[in-house]
């Protein structure tokens, strides 16, 4: 935001008719109205806990890559090409020159996060015309503390030579049998030679890791690229968009001397994926059984593309468990999946009715595949949002190939608000969700705030987020600047208690400012002198 003096009513001066010494030196404020499309990306660890305070600040200062054909059209919130996680969040801004020529036109980039101790993730971020502010949650797999249903197995005993290849057979099992989840076993044959992505031979000590993801519950929150991918490469070379229903997936990584192994020569790696006990075949609407077909997919980490490798056969093991086995000459994520080509709609809109909920409530909104009797589910999308009576939630690329459950959890009051199941395809028809949970009335507190940079009043740009916490508590979303409320400087909330002291953290771009405020009364005027860094972030242009 920038200020400057103008001489108001220049024409008066031009005519020269008037003289007046008291002419006001009015500031002209330039807002960030061009920020019409902002993606709010939150990085979290364990998604199984729906309560707040999950932002993964361990990733702060990690620089992420933005790739894909539309990467040039995306900036950070400061209008720069440096993408750094701050406060567990990252905001992406669509270039203001971009036009949505048609309602269905979209712009997509791949967000690639690589951080020490975490599994690399590639997540598509899509900008659509009707969603000014997209909330995207990126669940990161922290190898040291894996959620239930995800298991890691490693091996460092192998050694690879240029001439003779691998010196021993390596067999690793990432087992989820304790949770009845998906178990992945790989066998790397003796003598196999290994090459990097450029085809160069690799030699030295081999580090191998296998991470096996169960398809049920929250495992698919970590699904590479999400369950509704675009640009999926089929066997005939064509590409398709659609929706996956997973039967389990695994990441297989090998490194030699810090370099990633990409391909094998002189042998193939055998992969055996044992299905979970609660697996579900969308084609038959029953559990998988021996003899069923199950497609095998691989994932190109760098460009975020799924590729159909082959169709596997479900076989029964000696203990009765079901598995699919295959061989591969390259490494990637591997996925056993039913893929419904075009089985989704671009945008589903659901209105929330909640009588009496006149102030925003922090909620977690989760969409899942499910099926009767609804004890099994598969996470499609989850993000934190604020809802009240009349809020319209939009679901990008809503699948149509399975019944979908929507769950809304009240983070502020730690309670489930509503679960609603939409029959196959019904979510795309729109509709309403009635929330009958009583509105918990709390004392309303108003904050009329004024952010100051020198003597300039700042209107926080679209995308500014304010988090709050009771001192020592977990951070929760307090206020978010939408396109519609960007000039409001009064927040009426029931989140704060009179007499209580809170920390407030304001994020604007990659800059943040912490301030501790005691709420002394119901109506509060707060004038905040912003830090130089924050002012610099705001006073661009």
């Amino acid at each position, binding site marked *: 935001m920038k200020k400057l003096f103008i001489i*108001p*009513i220049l024409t008066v001066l031009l005519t020269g008719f008037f003289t007046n010494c008291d002419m006001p030196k009015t500031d002209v404020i330039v*807002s960030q*109205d061009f920020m019409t499309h902002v993606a709010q990306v939150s990085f979290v660890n364990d998604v199984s806990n729906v309560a707040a305070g999950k932002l993964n600040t361990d990733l702060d200062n990690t620089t992420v890559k933005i790739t894909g054909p539309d990467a040039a059209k995306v900036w950070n919130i400061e209008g720069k090409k440096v993408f750094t996680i701050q406060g567990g969040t990252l905001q992406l801004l669509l270039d203001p*020159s971009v036009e949505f020529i048609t309602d269905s036109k979209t712009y997509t980039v791949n967000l690639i996060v690589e951080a020490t101790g975490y599994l690399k993730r590639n997540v598509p971020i899509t900008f659509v015309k009707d969603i000014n502010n997209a909330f995207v949650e990126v669940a990161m797999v922290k190898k040291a503390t894996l959620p239930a249903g995800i298991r890691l197995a490693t091996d460092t005993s192998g050694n690879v030579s240029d001439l003779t290849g691998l010196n021993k057979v390596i067999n690793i099992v990432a087992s989820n049998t304790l949770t009845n989840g998906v178990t992945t076993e790989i066998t790397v044959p003796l003598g196999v030679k290994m090459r990097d992505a450029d085809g160069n031979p690799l030699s030295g000590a081999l580090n191998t890791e296998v991470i096996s993801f169960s398809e049920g519950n929250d495992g698919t929150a970590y699904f590479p690229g999400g369950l509704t991918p675009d640009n999926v490469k089929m066997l005939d070379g064509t590409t398709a968009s659609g929706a996956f229903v997973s039967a389990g997936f695994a990441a297989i990584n090998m490194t030699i001397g810090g370099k990633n192994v990409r391909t094998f020569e002189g042998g193939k790696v055998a992969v055996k994926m044992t299905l979970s006990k609660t697996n579900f075949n969308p084609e038959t609407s029953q559990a998988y059984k021996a003899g069923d077909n199950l497609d095998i997919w691989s994932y190109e980490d760098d460009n975020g593309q799924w590729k159909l490798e082959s169709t596997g056969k479900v076989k029964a093991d000696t203990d009765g468990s079901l598995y699919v086995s295959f061989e591969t000459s390259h490494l990637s994520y591997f996925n056993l999946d039913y893929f419904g080509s075009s089985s989704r709609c671009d945008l589903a809109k659901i209105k929330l009715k909640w009588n009496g909920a006149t102030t925003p409530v922090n909620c977690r909104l989760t969409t899942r595949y499910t099926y009767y009797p609804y004890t099994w589910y598969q996470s499609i999308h989850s993000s934190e949002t604020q809802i009240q009576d009349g809020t319209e939630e939009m679901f990008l690329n809503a699948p149509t190939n399975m019944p979908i459950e929507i769950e809304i959890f009240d983070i502020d009051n730690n309670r489930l608000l509503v679960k609603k199941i939409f029959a196959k395809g019904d979510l795309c028809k729109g509709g309403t969700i009635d929330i009958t949970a009583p509105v918990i009335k709390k004392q309303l507190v108003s904050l009329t705030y004024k952010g100051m940079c020198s003597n300039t009043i700042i209107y926080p740009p679209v995308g500014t987020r304010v988090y709050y916490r009771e001192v020592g508590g977990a951070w929760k979303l307090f206020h978010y600047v939408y396109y519609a409320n960007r*000039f409001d400087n009064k927040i009426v909330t029931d989140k704060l208690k009179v007499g209580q002291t809170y920390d407030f953290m304001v994020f604007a771009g990659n800059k943040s400012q912490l301030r501790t405020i005691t709420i002394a009364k119901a109506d509060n005027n707060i004038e905040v002198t912003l830090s130089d860094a924050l002012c610099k972030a705001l006073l661009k242009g």
Partner: protein
Amino acid sequence: MKNKLLLLPFLFILFTVNAQDNGKISETKKDQKNAILLNFGSLGLGLGYARSFTDHLSVRVQGSYLNIHQKRDGVKLNDRLIDVDANFKSMNYEALLDYTPFKKSSFKLVSGVSHISTKGSAILIPAGEVKYGDIVIPKDKVGEINTSADWAGIASYAGIGFGRAVPKHKLGFGFEMGGYFLKKPNFIFDATKMLTPNEEQEKESHEIQNWLNKFTFLPSIMFHINYKL
């Protein structure tokens, strides 16, 4: 009260003209003289008609028009360059009474009423490239500020000057200075797109509006060339 004061010059003219009609028509008829006049001054260029009733009193009906348009790119205001497209337009019609107290001098006192329509407007657009970080913001996303102040309605006028409305000879010249007593202006401040906060701020502060409200007196300088018919 102000509206009533505005009526006074009218009543004065009517009374004077009416007085001529009621009794002295035969004596003054031969003294009645007419003139057309061309005027120019701070409110522009105009034409008028004048008629004298006595050696001391005459009436003028005149109009004037002014339209100034100025476009300047890259005007530096504070740290920012602004393109300014400004316009000032004035149109007024008036009936004035000239009172020339001295027979041997053309000094006069002038009073009257005017229907005045004066509007000053300006469109302000940040000049050149507007950047946010490394993003060049397209011009059509930036928006503009439209301001205008509009004084429209009946205004009373008072002034002094030299030169008879109907000259003694065929051609005469005149000069007068005075001013119009105006109502408060109708003020519009409209900002679009990225400049919208300015509109919000003005709505809150009324700073410019209050400043403009002080301008209820419009000074005027006028020259006229009169041709006796």
